[in-house]
């Protein structure tokens, strides 16, 4: 499991198992407006600017070239062969299990545990995208080592990088929420203190859920900026309060000054749960759903039911199951 595939295995995959008809509809639609890229030798996607006018052209290409990795652009162009005349781009969030800032497994690459933690984060982000941001045309892709969340609602596809960056920070909880509020008719008085956990909706609630996820998965071995060993130990010691939703007590145990620093540190840490570069890049290419992630021998695939998705059951190609050590 998670071992690289050989050229022979790739050939078997693309000739016997892979079917062009299984490409997700959102890829098949406007296929000729996307740029395709390939990695043939495992050195990165250096065969770029490719276009396919029909599904049959992709079918033939994949069958005969059996690439190490296949990608397609999140962008739509009038001239995809030169990445020219940009029209729009999907809004993308890349949650890579191997790069999560907090992983309870501490494994070297990816394993069942961190893949599951990445899936839980995807569920949280999905909830925010649908609930707070009201987005509907969302597709989840298992990438082989994590998940891509691809949003195709028309109104977000023309956003520039700055707007995408704001959305990214919102959904990942990467801004320390305000905790002091003033009433209009009391501007000269002391502001009201309202911590994020006292506001059960909007951005404060998003932040609370992301921080809760991190607290529940901390192992104590992490190095988190501005959180020393003593504070890390206390967070673990009192996290049962967070689990029960008793945030006020948790804050008391941590202490108000340390809690303020904790909130700041967690907002910085949350920035790492999604690969920010992917979200703000309008011309990114992403692994093609249905293609093979040859480094780990897993299928990159669209996930219809993320709540119950188990990559080790659903994304394993036949050739891996037939390996002697499987």
């Amino acid at each position, binding site marked *: 499991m998670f071992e690289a595939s050989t050229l022979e295995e790739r050939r078997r995959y693309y000739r016997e198992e892979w079917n062009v008809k299984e490409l997700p509809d959102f890829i098949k639609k406007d296929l000729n407006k996307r740029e395709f890229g390939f990695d043939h030798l495992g050195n990165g996607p250096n065969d770029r600017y490719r276009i396919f006018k029909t599904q049959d052209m992709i079918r033939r290409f994949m069958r005969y070239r059996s690439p190490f990795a296949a990608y397609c652009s999140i962008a739509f162009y009038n001239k995809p062969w030169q990445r020219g005349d940009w029209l729009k781009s999907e809004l993308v969030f890349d949650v890579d299990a191997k790069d999560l800032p907090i992983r309870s497994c501490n494994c070297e690459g990816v394993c069942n545990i961190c893949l599951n933690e990445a899936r839980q984060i995807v569920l949280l982000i999905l909830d925010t995208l649908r*609930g*707070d*941001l*009201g*987005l509907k045309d969302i597709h989840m892709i298992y990438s082989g080592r994590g998940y891509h969340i691809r949003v195709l609602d028309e*109104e*977000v596809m023309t*956003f*520039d990088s*700055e*707007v995408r*960056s*704001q*959305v990214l*920070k*919102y959904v990942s909880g990467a*801004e320390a*929420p*305000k905790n002091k*509020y*003033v*009433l*209009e*008719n009391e501007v000269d008085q002391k502001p*009201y203190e*309202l911590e994020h956990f*006292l*506001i*059960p*909706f*909007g*951005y404060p609630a998003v932040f609370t859920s992301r921080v809760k996820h991190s607290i529940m998965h901390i192992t104590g071995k992490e190095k988190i*900026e501005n959180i020393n060993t003593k504070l890390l130990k206390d967070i673990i010691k009192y996290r049962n309060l967070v689990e029960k939703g008793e945030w006020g007590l948790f804050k008391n145990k941590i202490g108000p000054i340390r809690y303020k620093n904790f909130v700041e540190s967690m907002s*910085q840490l949350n*920035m790492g749960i999604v690969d*920010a*570069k992917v979200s*703000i890049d309008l011309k990114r290419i992403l692994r093609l759903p249905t293609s093979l992630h040859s480094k780990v021998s897993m299928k990159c695939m669209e996930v219809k039911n993320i709540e119950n998705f188990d990559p080790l059951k659903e994304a394993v190609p036949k050739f891996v199951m037939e390996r002697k050590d499987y």
Partner: protein
Amino acid sequence: MVSLSFLNPLSSEGEEIVREKGSLDHISDINAELLMVVRESESQKISNDSYIPQSYADLAVKRVEWYARKKNDKKYNHNDYAFLLNPEITEFDVISFYIAAQSVGIKFKPNSRETRLMIEAQGKLVEERLEKIPSYQRKEIVDNLLNQLVFEDNIPWTSIAELLGSKKIRLADLILDQGEVILEKDDFMDRFDEKIIGRPSEKMYDLLIGERIKIMIITRMIMQNTENYIKRVHDMASKIEPHPSLLQIADQITEKINESISYYSSSGGGFGGDIKASELVHEAFPPCIQKTIEGVGSGNRNDAIVLLLTSFISYARLYPSVFRNDISMKISDIDADLQITINEILPLIYDAADRCTPPLFEDDPQEKLNITAKLGFGVHTIPELKNEGESKWYTPMSCEKIKIHLSSLCKPDATCKNIGNPLSYYNRKRWELRKSGGKSKTNEDTKNDE
């Protein structure tokens, strides 16, 4: 009731006023009615003629001058400009808004300091004018303005993308639900009342949203619309011969802005007062810049040199107070013959580029052109005065951006705490170094010496 065009000159009411009375032929003529409104404005200083705008043209200049002085001049006195907050001035003000916006749009580029000040002045005027309206009237005016600016009952957050992109509003400051920005109390109660435990929901609404968020959206939208209007004028200016009076007014606006900056420069202030152009203090460079100067590996190399170092070094050397002053300048405003730029700034950047692995220009010689462009001199091999303004003089990227784009360079030290930009770090550290008595010693070094 205050007219909505007093707050939003780009409204249909405002456009109507301009259509009826906005001829450009007599905008510099003395206007007796305007003089009367100004003189009768509450607490307006009238002891000197220079306080009083006598014509539409004067008023157009005063609108920008007011804001530039308010920001930069410690001797600023509100009573010099009290007429700007008098609702009786509405008609004159609307016409002068268009005159100022057109003058700026014709003469200057959309990212010039004149354009920025014009936009910011309009935003500040909206805020101050709303503040002065009695609260019993304000609610209705705010709602009417919002209806005028936003056509739907609830604003989809996606419809304010332009404001989000220009960072005029943070998404995290808004209460969102099902894709909508929640603004009305009834709506808030319908959606969240059941979720709120242990606190009165109405008070929660007042704290989290209230008029504050509505006013923020209104102000930012009017600023955005002003920006868009100036851009449109700028685009049109190349096709239509501009009215000579507008060009004269644009020059007067520049003159007034320069005056206000010189007030500021002579008054000092901030971290020890002196954050004017002066020799670079390398010891005050933040860790990300130190690392960049030492040379960067291929992954981050181009952005580190072209985007981060170029802007940092040029601003640190020539205009370290850019964020404090908040007025955009051109390099030649400070380095008139470009001697500092060519003999000090560029060599430092080029040397750092050579220390990269592999050296930047060996791999990407065209990046020299990009460096020139980031200094505001367009895509050329070296900066030359004739090309200035072809591109924008990039300000240093924020710490937040560095964390995203160049995360491997971000190794914060104690000073980085509460700092949002490498240039702010530089100013603070330079001040600390000077305060501690040694230009070349940091606090830590001093301790070790002891």
